[in-house]
């Protein structure tokens, strides 16, 4: 750990960033990063965390202010200069080439660091072994679950030992076991004197992994304090300022779920993807007014189960019944017309990134068959948008800018607005709160709880165990393509869950 008073390895001074559209993302930020220290960065959606990280990484330039690295003022012209200088970043959205194999991705990255393919792969194998990562080097990246992709990203970033490592919300899409593995890596690097900038929305992680914590609000630093002493309440208050934090919803023990028939029924479903049987005979039922949680270690068939239920992946066997109709062979849009809505885990899939907020909302309405022709009433769509922007607190400069320019959390809020606007009867939601700040996470939880009490059937697939346990009427655990257990949340003990997820039933 860094002795206070020593020279910071990396520092930023008076950083200001105004995006071309006029958004002020950073408004005079000064921070120090010490060697051998984990510096946690907290802040609401749109506070400017990712912007700060991208400036340090040389990806974008500050409007004014400076970055000081190893005692000298630096201005990286691009990430590759930062990387050569020993700075690495793991993005909120991973940056692997999807169509390539893991080995190819690593070799590609290694070649830019001056490593030959053999050297890069040797280094990668060594790292994987050191951290106990099982990485399928010959698999195609696009076929891998988020948890494994993250491991590849980590290994990639560490091929040549860095001096500074930036992690942008590394735990928002991966399961608790993956988080443990990640923390082991971070602790190891801290021992070796690497300066780590760790961006997160999960307040509980602050004390576990952090040495110092900085809270940002609307482009400014609010406070920097020792991480071990900061309480969750204190941090939450610093993040949201004067406003009140919404309450977590209390799920009434007996929901509206009566003995009515299932809204969604899956029978003995099998899904084969790239020759691999990812889902091996899953049966489940979600009744109206019920939340069925599904959890498990990433890559145990959850993604394939979901994509088959919504009709994106073809089914190899079994049957899917939606509101009493067999939809096993129907395309996604037909299922939508029957009352299904799908919130994918990746924002690249839950929104059309190149289109603006208005158009994305209109698309949601169109998909649900609720956009009447012949002409779109854009005024009506705009009114709806304003309503949800206020309800969810979306920070958005303009409804006409492509949503790809919005911060991760704000994108997630828009994706949710799309669902709220159409009132589906069956919702399949994957990681609905990933990347959301605490206030918004609670708002979303309340929304889900309210939808449930209005009689919606919700299949909640989440890598966030707390979320699943808190919101679900019943929790299913998936392992190796099968559901190994379905019970009420309070009937599980944490150890039991860990065992089930790990596969030792």
């Amino acid at each position, binding site marked *: 750990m860094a002795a206070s008073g020593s020279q910071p390895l990396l520092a930023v001074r008076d950083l200001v960033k105004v995006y*071309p*559209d006029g958004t002020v993302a950073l408004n005079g930020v000064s921070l120090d990063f010490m060697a051998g220290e984990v510096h946690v960065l907290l802040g609401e959606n749109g506070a400017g965390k990712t912007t700060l990280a991208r400036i340090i990484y040389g990806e974008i330039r500050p409007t004014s202010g400076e970055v000081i690295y190893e005692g000298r003022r630096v201005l990286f012209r691009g990430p590759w200069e930062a990387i050569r200088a020993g700075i690495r970043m793991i993005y909120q959205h991973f940056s692997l*080439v999807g*169509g*390539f194999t893991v080995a*190819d991705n690593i*070799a*590609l990255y*290694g*070649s830019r660091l001056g490593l*030959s*393919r*053999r*050297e*890069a*792969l040797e280094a990668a194998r060594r790292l994987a072994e050191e951290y106990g990562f099982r990485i399928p080097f010959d698999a195609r990246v696009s076929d891998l679950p988020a948890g494994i992709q993250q491991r590849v990203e980590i290994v990639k970033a560490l091929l040549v030992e860095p001096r500074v490592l930036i992690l942008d919300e590394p735990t928002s899409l991966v399961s608790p076991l993956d988080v443990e593995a990640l923390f082991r890596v971070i602790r190891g690097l801290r021992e070796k004197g690497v300066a780590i900038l760790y961006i997160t929305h999960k307040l509980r992680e602050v004390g576990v992994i952090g040495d110092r914590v900085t809270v940002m609000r609307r482009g400014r630093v609010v406070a920097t304090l020792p991480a071990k002493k900061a309480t969750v309440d204190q941090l939450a208050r610093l993040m949201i300022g004067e406003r009140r934090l919404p309450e977590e919803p209390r799920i009434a023990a007996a929901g509206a779920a009566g003995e009515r028939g299932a809204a969604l029924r899956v029978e003995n479903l099998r899904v084969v993807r790239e020759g691999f049987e990812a889902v091996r005979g899953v049966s489940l039922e979600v009744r109206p007014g019920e939340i069925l949680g599904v959890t498990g270690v990433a890559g145990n068939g959850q993604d394939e189960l979901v994509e088959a239920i*919504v009709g*994106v992946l073809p089914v190899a066997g079994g049957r899917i019944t939606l509101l009493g109709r067999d939809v096993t062979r129907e*395309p*996604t*849009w037909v*299922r*939508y*017309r029957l009352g*299904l*809505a*799908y919130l*994918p885990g990746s924002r*690249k*899939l*839950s*929104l*059309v*990134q*190149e*289109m603006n907020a208005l*158009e994305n909302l*209109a*698309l*949601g309405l*169109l*998909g*649900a068959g609720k*956009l009447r*022709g*012949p*002409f*779109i009433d*854009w005024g009506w769509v705009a009114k709806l948008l304003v309503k949800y922007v206020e309800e969810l607190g979306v920070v958005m400069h303009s409804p006409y800018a492509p949503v790809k320019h919005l911060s991760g959390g704000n994108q997630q809020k828009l994706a949710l607005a*799309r669902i709220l606007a159409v009132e589906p009867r069956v919702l399949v939601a994957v990681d609905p709160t990933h990347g959301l700040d605490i206030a918004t996470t609670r708002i979303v939880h309340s929304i889900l709880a309210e939808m449930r009490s209005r009689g919606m059937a919700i299949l909640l697939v989440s890598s966030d165990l707390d979320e699943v346990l808190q919101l679900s009427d019943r929790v299913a655990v998936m392992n190796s393509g099968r559901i190994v257990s379905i019970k009420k949340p309070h009937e599980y003990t944490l150890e039991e869950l860990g065992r089930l997820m790990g596969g030792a039933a």
Partner: protein
Amino acid sequence: MKPVVEKLIGSLIGLAAALAAMALAFSLLGYNPAEAFRLLGEGIVENYDIMLLRVAPLILTSLAFAVPAFAGLFNIGGEGQAYVGALAALAVSYIAPNPVLCLLVGALAGGLLGYLAGVLRVKRGVHEVVSTIMLNWIAFYTVRYIVVNYFKNPYYPDTTNPVPPPGRLGQVAGVPVVVFIAIAACILCYLVLYRMPLGLAIRSTGAGYEAARRLGIDVEKAMILSMLLGGVFGGLAGAVIVIGETYNLDVALSSVYGVGFDGIGAALLAWNNPLAIPFSSLLLSALVAGGYQLQIGMGIDIHVLSIFTGVVVFVLGLPSLYELLKPKLQALRLAKARRRGGGA
């Protein structure tokens, strides 16, 4: 607003590059570029009627390319769609010489061709570039065969029987009626794309196929309908040539020949924006009109002017070409890294 400015700048760069390339070509061929450009301008003024006649089909083939492009499809078939549109309009005019009917049937014929390519793409996975190029050739030879064998004018054997006068469209205030039709088509396209649910579906399919289908959009229908719509405009392009310009076809189909490909250039120059397409089409047809003067005045082959279109397509198509090639370039870099590693 900003993307519009960016695109405008892009188009201006394309224009400037194209003009510079032409100046260079003129001097390489031994002509004085200043004199050539003066003649070109003169020609545009002198032959403005040719320009106006040329602009209508060009606008329509631009739309034929632009509409499917919004769904992420490359309709190279505007050419073939124009051939069948022209033939269909001509055939109908012999039986029922009503211009509206002729145009409708011409549009329908082109639309069918587009629809076919769309269905082949969606249901059979045949890439639309391949299928439309093949359909272009099939259309060309089929139409020629029919023209030569069935529609030949006994008095002028290298042309068809003319459209009977009641089936023709003339001029209003010195402007061919078909120009108004073409401009109306642009406005219609704009409305469909930006104001109607179908347009939203089409644009989302092109902008984010994987996301759109997970949002419940029927992306297959959007793709097919975009090709159908593109084909309709391609067919209409051929029909307006016959009904509003030449009133017949010649056995080489020379009045239609190339209009589909020029339309791609005009569409790219306008970044596929239906409201910009009339202007880019006007520019390209002005070049054709001016070109005649160039030929008369300096003896420069009119084909030199194709350089202009070529450079425009090249400069403005470059960014999308780069997007297409990006994975390939990455693979190349990878292969290099592989070689250095001794083939591990």
